[in-house]
Every structure is written in structure tokens, then in C-alpha cells.
């Protein structure tokens, strides 16, 4: 059972499948960081993203890339609806955190039931077949799904990093996350930035759901469990730390999938809830790595610079 080839295979498959978990966790962590909301309605966005892609590919017979775009459009549209008609209204009313929480939970359930009414309760996939050709690399079976999924996830993460670090709107987003009122005083339109972060999260989870829906069967209620995984990863990664959530999602994904080595597969689902419960109880602030010593950079200022730059 603990043959090196088997362990390597499980670890690789776990790593590849954690790609969509990373996207779900990053989107959840982003909204939590910027909008300060535990957005359980993300499950509804995920459901819309998946079923929009499903309609495109399976019902309208569009090519995969068109289904992918339609999936993103579906997720973004639902994010817009939630922010514009839900969160923005509740913010305006200064609704309590409890009220907003209840809204996110109920909204996600409402979307799930609406989707059940339209598409039924049977699980389905974006493509008719879930079979992906396999290539042996060093004794490990790498499916044709694995590398594109990992590449897509890495690309999304890199794009998000670049957006937050270098773009004006990304920096505004970080400013709002840091202190929304102060950001507003500096002329940043808070509501626009909060909407942007919701839409960005909508794009990220829709990509994640497309990856998930091309590999596993999805039903209307499935997104709730996937989202709870994101919640556990966000808490373990440290609230407010988007990249910590991504790393935690990879670790949790690998642990959950490789648990098959130790426990019967029927118990794998239970592990998620155990993670969630113990993440909160034992690591409410997430795993903290030892703080890096921030030594001040000694910058020697050239004597000319101290003057007016002309040597006076």
C-alpha cells in the first residue's frame, strides 16, 4: 500500500486536483480581505458559473472555450447581482454582521434551490465525458487535465498578484482592505472597489468551477461543500492573507486526497468538516510562520540629494 509509486501517484493527483480548491480559497479570501464579508454566497456564484458553462457546452453545443467564457459571464453576473442588490443595500442600511451573514447563507441556498428547480438534482458535468487521456511520466500517470488545470491556476494567481501589486485599481483594493474609510477620504470610490473585488472573485471561482466541472460531477448543492473547503483554507491560511489561503488549500487538498492511504474513502467527506471545525477551534488566526526580521534598509543619501540637487 505504501509503495513509492502509489504514494507518488496519489500525491500528484492530489496536487493537481487542489488547483480548483486554490481558486475557491483565493476568491473567498479576497472578498473577506477587501469587503470584510464571510461570503457564503460564493457557493451561489460557483453554481451559476458551472451551470452557465454547462448550458453553453451541453445544451447549446458551443465549443469548450465558449462554454468557459459563458461560465465566467454567469459567475460574474451573479456576483454583480449579489453585490448590487444585496451587499450594497445592506451596507447602506448599516446592517449588522449577523444580518449580512444570514444574507450570504440564505442567498447561496436560494440559488441552489432555484438551480435544482431548473436543472434537477442529478449530478452532471460540463463535457459529456470525464475521461482524460493519460501519459506516464516517470511512472506517474499524468492526465491531460492535470497540466492545463495547474497552469490555469498558476496563471490566475500570477495575474491576481500583478493586478494587486501594480495596477491602480489593485492598489485601491488593498487600500480599501486596509482602511475603507481612510481610502474614501483619499478619493477612492469604496463602492466601486468593493464591486470590483466581488466581480474579480466571480471570475476566479468560475474558472475554478469550470476546472472542477470538467473533472467531477456537479449538482446544485455541491458548491456548498466546495466553498466550506475554501472557508477552512482561508482560516488556516490566516484571515486577510490571500496567498496563505492558497497554500492552505493545496495542503488541505493533498491531505484530504492522500488520506485514502490511511482511512476508507467513504470518510474523506467527513475530513472536510473536521478540518473546518478544528481550523476554527485550534487555529483561529491561521498558521503563523515565524515573522521575518524586517531590518531597516540603510540608504546612504548622496550629499547632493540633500540639497536642491544642484549641489547648493
Amino acid at each position, binding site marked *: 500500500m505504501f509503495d513509492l509509486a502509489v504514494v507518488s501517484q496519489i500525491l500528484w493527483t492530489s496536487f493537481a486536483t487542489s488547483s480548483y480548491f486554490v481558486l475557491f480559497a483565493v476568491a473567498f479570501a479576497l472578498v473577506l480581505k477587501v469587503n470584510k464579508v464571510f461570503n457564503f454566497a460564493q457557493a451561489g456564484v460557483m453554481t451559476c458559473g458551472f451551470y452557465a458553462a454547462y448550458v453553453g457546452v451541453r445544451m447549446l453545443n458551443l465549443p469548450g472555450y465558449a462554454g468557459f467564457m459563458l461560465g465566467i459571464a454567469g459567475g460574474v453576473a451573479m456576483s454583480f447581482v449579489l453585490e448590487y442588490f444585496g451587499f450594497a443595500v445592506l451596507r447602506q442600511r448599516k446592517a*449588522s454582521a*449577523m444580518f449580512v451573514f444570514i444574507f450570504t447563507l440564505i442567498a447561496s441556498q436560494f440559488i441552489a434551490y432555484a438551480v435544482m428547480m431548473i436543472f434537477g438534482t442529478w449530478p452532471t458535468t460540463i463535457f459529456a465525458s470525464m475521461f482524460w487521456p493519460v501519459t506516464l511520466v516517470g511512472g506517474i500517470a499524468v492526465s491531460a487535465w492535470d497540466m492545463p488545470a495547474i497552469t490555469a491556476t498558476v496563471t490566475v494567481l500570477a495575474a491576481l498578484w500583478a493586478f494587486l501589486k501594480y495596477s491602480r485599481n489593485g492598489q485601491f483594493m488593498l487600500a480599501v482592505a486596509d482602511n475603507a474609510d481612510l481610502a474614501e477620504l483619499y478619493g477612492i470610490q469604496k463602492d466601486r472597489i468593493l464591486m470590483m473585488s466581488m466581480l474579480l472573485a466571480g471570475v476566479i471561482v468560475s474558472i475554478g468551477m469550470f476546472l472542477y466541472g470538467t473533472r467531477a460531477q456537479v449538482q446544485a448543492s455541491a458548491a456548498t461543500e466546495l466553498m466550506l473547503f475554501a472557508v477552512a483554507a482561508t482560516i488556516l491560511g490566516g484571515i486577510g492573507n490571500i496567498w496563505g489561503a492558497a497554500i492552505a488549500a493545496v495542503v488541505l487538498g493533498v491531505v484530504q486526497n492522500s488520506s485514502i492511504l490511511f482511512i476508507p474513502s467513504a470518510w474523506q467527506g467527513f475530513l472536510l468538516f473536521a478540518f473546518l471545525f478544528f481550523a476554527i477551534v485550534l487555529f*483561529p488566526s491561521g498558521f503563523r510562520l515565524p515573522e521575518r526580521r524586517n531590518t531597516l534598509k540603510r540608504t546612504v543619501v548622496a550629499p547632493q540629494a540633500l540639497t536642491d540637487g544642484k549641489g547648493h
Partner: protein
Amino acid sequence: MDYVFTILILIGLFVILASSFDLVIGHCGLISIAHPIFYAIGAYISAMLSKQSGMPIPLSILCGGVGALLASALVAVPALRVSGDYLLIASIGFQLGLIELAKHFHEIGGAGGLTNIPSFLIKDFGRESYVVLVLVLAAATVLFIRWLTQGPYGRMMTAMRDDELAFSMLGRNAIWVKVAVFAIGSGIAGIAGGLYAHYFRFLEPDQFGLLQSSAVLTMVVVGGMRTTMGPVIGAIVLQLMPQIITFFNLPPSILGPLQGLLFTGLVLFFMFVRPQGLLPAADLWAGRNRDGDAGHSRKEARS
């Protein structure tokens, strides 16, 4: 007539559930939607004790309540140490995790459900007696919660909910109050669970999932949070309404989602259109907005 009796029993049980949930979420302000899992714990403990060890049913129902009370403290003590928001997530993890766990334990029926639970009163005194028992206990619960929330303990809860920091500064232990209220509410739900088990005589883990949470939450929000009669009205309205749908003879695949859609849709409607519910509490939802604005304007006027 059995149909009417069953509806009355369900109304009574949901009055108990909604009122005890309002104690937790409304009066104490604890954000948790996992109330049905404590209902389930009470139901399973009571069913197993009476079925396996032959314990007298009233005693097993009480044990179910105590079991739910202890389980809720198990969740609340560590989760409330951190922050109120975490309780919601911890309780969801606890609720769904326990349901998943129950599905794998064949000793308690597994995913297929626990059957042949001993019935109580019905054989000897008929269904009417059970209706009376449940309705009396429902009324007792409502009165107990009214007594609790309108007395000194209620004022303490209000003070803690409105300003936890000030409450703690007065030397009060907020965590202890929260854990106690959470445990009392959950214990009452556990007793309701025992009553459910010995009437319907069948328990299935999926009965106590998020749909049930939505249903109880709907009853409280629609009826009116933090009021004595709000959850009662909510429970009556929302138990009778799905009965109307059942007359349409819809297939179960449509009926379930339709009921869920109705429950969640009603909550959303009330949240945005009438957040105070059918019976508004005196101070509820006037909240920070008006008070805050008024406070600011008063300060501005003074300055």
C-alpha cells in the same frame, strides 16, 4: 384526522425549535444556524436510549435534551473564545460533519435511517394525547423564554448583545453568558428532537441539514426576531404554507426544491422588505443606523 394531528405536532415542535433558536440568535445575538443538529442529537440519543437500553421514554427524552446541551457547550466554548463570527462557521462544520458522521455509523441506522423507535403515549392514549403533550411543552417553552428574556437574565443578555465591551468592563463574563444561552437553547431543541423521534419513529441524518436550518431561521426572521410571539407565528405560518404546496401533487424532485425556494425566498424578501418581521421587536433594526445618525447629529448640535 391523523393528518391534522401530525400538522399540530409539527407546529408545536417548530414553535419549540424557533423559540429556542430566537433565544440564541435574537436575544443573545449568537450567529449560528446549526440549531437542527442539536434537535438531531436529542432525537438520536432519546431514540437509542429507549430502543437499546429500554430506558423509560420521558427519561430518555430528558437525556436527549441534556446530550444536546452538552454538545452545544462543546462547540460554543472553543468557538466563542475567538469571536462571534467564528461560531457560525464552527457550528456549520459541526452540523454538517456530524451529519456525515451519522451516515457512516450503522449502529444508529447510517444513511438509511434509524427505524422502529419506540412510540410514546399513542398506543395507550391515542394521538390526541401526544398533540396535547407537544402543545403544552411548546407553550411552556414560550413562557420559559419569555420569563428568561424579560427578567434580570434577559437584561444581562441585552446588555451583552448591545455592547459586549462595556458589559465585560462591568466585570461580567460575556463568554459564560453566551455559552449558557447557547446551551439552554440547544438543550430545549434536544428535547424537541426526542419528542419528534418518538412520534415519527424514524430518523435520517439528512433531515437535519441546511434545509432544516433555513426553515427554522425563516420562522424566526419572518415571525419577528427577539419577540415572544414572532417565532410562534413564524412556525405556524411556515408549517401551514408547505401543506398548501403538497395539495398540488408535485413530484418529490420538484416539491423539495420548491419548499426550499419558498423558505429561502421568504427570508430574502423579509430581509430587504420587512427586516423587522411580522411582529417587530421594539428596538430591533432601528439599530445602529438611526441611533448612530441621531447620536452624531446630537453631538454636532452640541458642538
